[in-house]
């Protein structure tokens, strides 16, 4: 991650780095506007995601689990796709659109709503996950003397604050770095401007890097907020506890809650369904002509990258969970890479790898894999760090005392204990790579455009039904992957998985000793 950016900073023979762009007022105004947009998106996601998370995780709202799964779908696809879906509905010539709805959609407010609805499931999911894993003893004690609203306000919400903060950081990072949807909705954002700067007629990547510096400051601020306000709890709270409190009975509020829950779910999946509607039979019939090898071009690099990211997570996650200093610094770099405009990373990678000696990387999917790993390593590292925090470090220490080497400890303890987290990290990383647009779009190998890029390059002038069909394929591909993951996670657990890790600590120590 750092290498490509240093190459850009060093400049080329044509474009020496200059801080002149930051002396103008326009970039700062644009950054302020982007931060305001990000804050508004954050507000929408929290306003939707928090109550939704509470309802699906801690109440007896009818159909809550199905609602959660359906509601979560948009967060796994590029935001450009829901934006396209809304356009097919509310564009001037959309199914139920008119001048007013088109005006609303193609405005700052429209961008906030589209991105807010797309990213709200991130808050919902993390809040629900945290709520499922809150220590039930405090809540059960509170139930004796307090009514549910008070328990929510005084016990549950404070307990899941780290998860909410983590969700906020993820939403802010994704909004700041998003390019496709704002460009489509004609809303100027900082990341889109950096992307356009890299596409400007006078090629000056060093200048684009200079424009990145304020974003890096924002990313550092986000990381600092996370570290200072949440600290170690950001890893500890999202465990995989096996026993939970009974859900709150909503009584007469049960059906109004269901209406809210399913309305939000409806809003989440409507744009995705609209893609299928717009594609129609014609779009899907023409698909073979236009899709080429795009699915394969998406899946192969994403699978390689996800495997590498998980491998990194298996190595760095345990170290990060124990607050190893080097791992903590690498985690910070990974977080910065996640927030930084992906196009810049892409140009830096091209500058490094397009040499005759390294053509075997630059001319193949390996260059995309490298970009994905640099950009999304944080997904694997954080997921594994969260999982490893749930197990005491003494288990690994004991193994080492008994002479197990590093690799054997990983293979004998870390991997078997955390196989579900590893699977989850792989799927999450794969999904992030599949939904990526801005990292690969400027440097994908000739003839190997991933599906998201193909949708992006065809979107402006391609036949709408075909573009909608391609987008639908992207959605179906992602959902199939998630379905596979859910199926794998639902497999009958082995004996040592179905009980709290902490409860079985002596057993693990024994296991480590045997190693």
């Amino acid at each position, binding site marked *: 991650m750092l290498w490509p950016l240093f190459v850009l900073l060093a400049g080329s023979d044509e474009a020496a780095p200059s801080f002149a*762009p930051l002396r*103008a007022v*326009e*970039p700062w105004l*644009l950054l302020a506007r982007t931060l305001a947009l990000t804050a508004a998106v954050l507000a929408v996601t929290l306003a939707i995601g928090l109550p939704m998370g509470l309802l699906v995780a801690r109440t007896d709202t009818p159909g809550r689990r199905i609602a959660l799964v359906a509601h979560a779908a948009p967060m796994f696809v590029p935001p450009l796709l829901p934006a396209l879906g809304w356009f097919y509905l509310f564009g*001037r*010539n959309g199914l139920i659109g008119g001048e007013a709805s*088109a005006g609303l959609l193609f405005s700052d407010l429209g961008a906030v709503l589209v991105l807010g609805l797309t990213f709200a499931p991130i808050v919902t999911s993390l809040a629900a996950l945290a709520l499922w894993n809150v220590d039930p003893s405090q809540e059960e004690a509170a139930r004796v003397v307090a009514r549910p609203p008070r328990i929510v306000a005084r016990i549950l919400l404070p307990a899941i604050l780290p998860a909410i903060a983590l969700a906020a950081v993820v939403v802010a990072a994704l909004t700041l770095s998003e390019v496709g949807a704002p*460009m489509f909705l*004609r809303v100027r954002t900082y990341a*889109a*401007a950096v*992307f*356009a*700067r*890299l*596409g*400007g*007629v*006078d*090629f000056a990547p060093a200048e684009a890097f200079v424009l990145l510096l304020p974003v890096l400051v924002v990313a550092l601020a986000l990381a600092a907020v996370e570290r200072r306000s949440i600290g170690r709890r950001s890893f500890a709270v999202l465990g995989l506890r096996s026993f939970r409190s009974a859900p709150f009975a909503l009584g007469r509020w049960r059906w109004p809650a269901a209406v809210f829950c399913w309305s939000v779910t409806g809003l989440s999946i409507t744009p995705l369904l609209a893609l299928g509607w717009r594609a129609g039979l014609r779009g899907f019939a023409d698909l073979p002509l236009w899709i080429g090898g795009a699915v394969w071009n998406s899946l*192969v*690099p994403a699978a*390689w990258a996800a495997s*590498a990211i998980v*491998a*990194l997570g298996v*190595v*760095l996650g345990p*170290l990060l969970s124990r607050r190893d200093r080097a791992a903590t610094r690498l985690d910070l770099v990974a977080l910065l890479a996640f927030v930084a405009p992906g196009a810049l990373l892409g140009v830096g990678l*091209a*500058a490094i790898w*397009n*040499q005759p000696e390294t053509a*075997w*990387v*630059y*001319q*193949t*999917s*390996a260059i995309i*894999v*490298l970009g994905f*790993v640099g950009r999304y390593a944080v997904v694997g590292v954080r997921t594994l760090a969260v999982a490893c925090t749930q197990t005491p470090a003494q288990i690994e220490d004991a193994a080492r005392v008994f002479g197990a*080497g*590093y*690799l054997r400890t*990983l293979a004998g303890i870390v991997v078997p204990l955390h196989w579900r987290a590893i699977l989850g990290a792989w799927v999450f990383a794969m999904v992030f790579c599949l939904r990526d647009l801005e990292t690969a779009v*400027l440097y994908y*190998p*000739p*003839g*190997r455009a991933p599906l998201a890029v193909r949708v*992006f*390059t*065809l*979107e*402006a*002038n391609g*036949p709408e039904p075909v573009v909608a069909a391609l987008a639908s394929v992207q959605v179906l591909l992602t959902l199939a992957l998630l379905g596979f993951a859910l199926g794998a996670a639902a497999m009958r657990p082995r004996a040592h998985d179905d009980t709290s890790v902490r409860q079985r600590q002596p057993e693990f120590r024994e296991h480590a000793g045997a190693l």
Partner: protein
Amino acid sequence: MRHPLQMLVAIALLVTAGACSERPPTKPEVVVYTSVDQVFSEPVFRRFEADTGVRVRSVFDTEETKSTGILNRLIAERANPQADVFWSGDPVRPFLLVSRGLVEPYTPTSAAGIPPAFKSAQGHWTGSAARARVLLVNRERLAGRRRRGPCAIWPTRAGGGRPPSPTRSTAPRRCMSPPGSQTGGDAEATRFLDALKANDVRIASSNGEVKRLVTSGEVVFGLTDTDDAFDAVKSGAPVDIVYPDQDAGGTLVMPTSVVLIRGAPHPEAARRLADYLVSPQAERMMVDAAAHMPLHADVATPAHVVPVARIRAMNIDYAALAAVMDRIQPQLRKWSGL
């Protein structure tokens, strides 16, 4: 392996080796970078593949960075060129490659029928199916302003005058295209651009966006290319096309242009593709699919396509225009906001 660092290195090597383990091509191939719309250019490549058996590996530009994204990639890759052919949507960008010594001169065998104005005598670029820069006008939005025409918003040159009806496919008399630095000087161009801003003119990110803005009625009219304009007409939107400056300086005509890259990995296949892209057969495909104007006189045009010979084309030196474009970039960036 006894240390995490060793493990990280092993992971990096394994994954890179795995991702690189793609089979070498079994048949001849050619790499083309193009800023011609993917929806139009890809069928041409497919036909070339079917006719010649040469596999085409393509990189397409996005609408928002049209021409320049690909151009920048070509410049960035100059030390180790990956592309064999650059099929540009206009004849101006290739000169930025020429000035950097990245172009291999070549005159396609099919270029004989192309008028001299649309090809380089040195073989640096050869024009093919062309577009014109036109005004796309929304009839419904214009209804209340018909007496004044689109020039009510577009700044006029000194002297003003009565604008003609924008609904005819001929030029408004006084509603003229922007004076370039090439013709009117920097000062006049700056005044014109500032006047645009003062008139609350919206700066769109692409021709496709202009089309969407006009067809949706968000703006009364916009400056775009004929392919997008005809696409808007075909969609049934209440729009008309106006060729500006037909009784003055002429309308800007931009042929797509084919350029060979110096030091390209597949020079022979590149020449074959260049021959094909300049051929009447490829032009015919662009005429049918994208309403481009053919440059070969023997390529028939459907009723909705206006041949180049029937409009007054702006007499322009594309090389000089490219130099001006390069020079005024800082001012343009400042004007557009970043």
